[in-house]
């Protein structure tokens, strides 16, 4: 009996001692993001990126990755319900106009001002400007990215003789594919043309502006017709399994594809695994310059965020130069604060960073941005270009006729939403294909 009493006393003492630890109300915040969606990137976000923040702040961050559709639906529904469960969001800048229009995000100008005032943080002004939507600062820049060509070194010997790969044109790319085909009998250029791939970005943000100087206005112009003729021929020297490719690092590593165009984050695993095998090249130039998409990812705070102060602390952590470099190394998204640029990456990342620099600093470089202002119909933009591609290049329909039909849909979309033309077109609204 005495033993029993001692045991009870001991148990109570242990419980009492550990109680503050166990029952302390740990602050948990929910971060909903459309980026870092692949499972390995989610793992990285939870275990590597957020761990130091959780340790220093004592808060727990629930990182929830979602597709754009459910992500937007949830935020809009929470804004309308007047009650929110998401504390902070991270998504593409193209999603913010809709969120602003629906009143689903707060103005973060004060947070941005405070951060920009710190000695260690200078945000790239262009990226900050992209967040100024509907009279508010809708997001704080978080990461940026672009798309490049990755090539296996064994493909370089088939590159058109006397031409410079770092100043590649679309004609060079086609010739390259033809050279590989005639030498090996195989089609080794690859595009991420599966439903999970980003080939649509190649069509509207790279090919169209490079050939026509426009994403929307010259949709059915004579320049566009010759561009589609070119794309048909390029598809003819592309790997016939391209329609199954979502992330180009996979066919690159398998050796199925030697020359691949994709988002830097989706090429990075190949560079990381075999840095000596691959080179990063800028996207090609067309008759109207070397157009490339600048992808901007921003951090925002939902209107009914339960804990905006904690969200602001997380934003501060995520935009720290050290975190920005960590993000570059982890998932291949590039920093948005100048102070992070001084860090020289190594290995595969270095190869890739060189490609990014070559693309951005080329004399004929032109930046295209993702379309904004299409509101609820944003999701229809890219599929329209993909559908045009399917009809022309895969089903072999008449180019002029397809372009006329598709231009009508594009015009209806812009007329209904009264959206402006995306750069490089001038921002007239509603945008209209000529």
């Amino acid at each position: 009996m005495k033993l029993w009493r001692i045991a009870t006393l001991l148990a109570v003492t242990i419980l009492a001692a550990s109680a503050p630890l166990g029952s302390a109300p740990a602050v948990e915040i929910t971060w909903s993001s459309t980026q870092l969606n692949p499972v390995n990137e989610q793992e990285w976000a939870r275990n590597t990126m957020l761990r130091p923040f959780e340790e220093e702040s004592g808060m727990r961050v629930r990182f929830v990755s979602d597709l754009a559709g459910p992500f937007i639906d949830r935020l809009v529904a929470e804004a309308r319900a007047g009650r929110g469960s998401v504390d902070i969001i991270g998504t593409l800048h193209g999603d913010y106009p809709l969120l602003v229009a629906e009143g689903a995000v707060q103005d973060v100008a004060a947070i941005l001002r405070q951060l920009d005032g710190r000695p260690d943080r200078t945000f790239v002004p262009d990226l900050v400007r992209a967040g100024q939507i509907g009279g508010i600062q809708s997001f704080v820049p978080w990461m940026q990215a672009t798309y490049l060509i990755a090539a296996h070194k064994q493909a370089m010997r088939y590159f058109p003789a006397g031409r410079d790969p770092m100043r590649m044109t679309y004609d060079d790319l086609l010739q390259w594919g033809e050279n590989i085909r005639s030498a090996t009998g195989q089609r080794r250029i690859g595009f991420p043309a599966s439903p999970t791939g980003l080939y649509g970005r190649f069509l509207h943000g790279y090919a169209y502006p490079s050939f026509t100087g426009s994403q929307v206005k010259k949709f059915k112009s004579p320049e566009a017709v010759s561009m589609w003729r070119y794309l048909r021929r390029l598809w003819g020297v592309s790997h016939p399994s391209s329609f199954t490719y979502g992330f180009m690092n996979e066919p690159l590593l398998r050796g199925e594809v030697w020359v691949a165009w994709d988002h830097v984050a989706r090429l990075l695993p190949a560079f990381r695994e075999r840095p000596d095998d691959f080179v990063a090249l800028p996207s090609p130039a067309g008759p109207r310059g070397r157009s490339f998409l600048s992808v901007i990812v921003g951090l925002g705070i939902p209107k009914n965020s339960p804990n905006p102060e904690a969200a602001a602390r997380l934003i501060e952590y995520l935009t720290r130069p050290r975190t920005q470099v960590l993000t570059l190394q982890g998932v291949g998204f590039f920093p948005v604060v100048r102070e992070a640029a001084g860090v020289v990456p190594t290995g595969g990342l270095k190869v890739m960073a060189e490609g990014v620099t070559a693309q951005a600093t080329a004399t004929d470089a032109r930046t295209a941005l993702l379309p904004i202002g299409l509101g609820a119909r944003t999701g229809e933009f890219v599929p329209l270009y993909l559908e045009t591609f399917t009809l022309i290049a895969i089903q072999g329909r008449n180019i002029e006729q397809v372009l006329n039909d598709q231009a009508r849909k594009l015009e209806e979309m812009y007329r209904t939403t009264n959206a402006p033309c995306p750069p490089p077109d001038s921002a007239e609204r509603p945008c209209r294909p000529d």
Partner: protein
Amino acid sequence: MTVAEQRLEQTLPPVRRQAVDWLPYVLLLPTVVFLAVFFVYPMLQAFVLSFRSPEGAITLRYFQAMLKDTYFAGALRNSFLLTAIIIPLQVVLALVIALLINTRFQGHPWFLFICAIPLGISDLGAGLIWSSFFTERGYLNLILQNLGLINEPITFLSFERPAWLYGAIVATEVWRATAIVMVILVAGLQLIPKDYFETADVFGASSWRKLRYVTLPLLRPALQTALIIRTILAFQLFATVIVMAGRIVPVLAGEAYFQYGLLRNVNIASAYAVLIMTLSMTITIFYLWLLRTKEEELGRG
């Protein structure tokens, strides 16, 4: 522990037998609630979304938009064609396996276990496994090359060879979903009383005649269940197709997903969902009619 359990039992009142035995209803309740919340309610909502315009009027515009969609005709054709190819293959294969297992040969539990493994694999998982089999650098090419049958790897998954794409999808689906049919048929076979076979033996019936006149007719309810489940699932076929063939081989369930996830057209996605549901229900009713147990058969001695 046992003492505590005994005490607990003593404190519980004995179950009294009432006029109405509520127990089955209580046991069914969780399922009914689950189905109501996660199936019936969303189904009704899909109906509303597919027929109601933003102004609140009843409209057919979403169905018209669906019919005009570039991928619609192909999706409808592919869904029917794939179902028509896959289901007969699966039923025959499952029947053969089930009959084999029912002979209770040495080691049949292991055979059953191995055949049932695909049951535990998601459709997306199965698609990924088989796509790594069929890619240019996949296992199939590796095997063929090691056997010396080919010199250069063959691109099986090519948009230029739709028939091969179909073949790859059919192979994946047969591998993945035959097991469910097989399990239902094995259960059905085990429900057939031994007496029938003994009687047939007395009359000197051959194995074939026993299969034709005893096993198959008595297996009809199990076949019916298996066919209904498989056909409904076949119209929901989507993840394996996306992995193997992207949108080159569009299917109805895939288009419903793209309309929602990619294009964010909730209403057109609902129209697709309503179409899939209508087709599944029609075919289910057809099966019920086709495989009904006829009155005269019941009376036939």
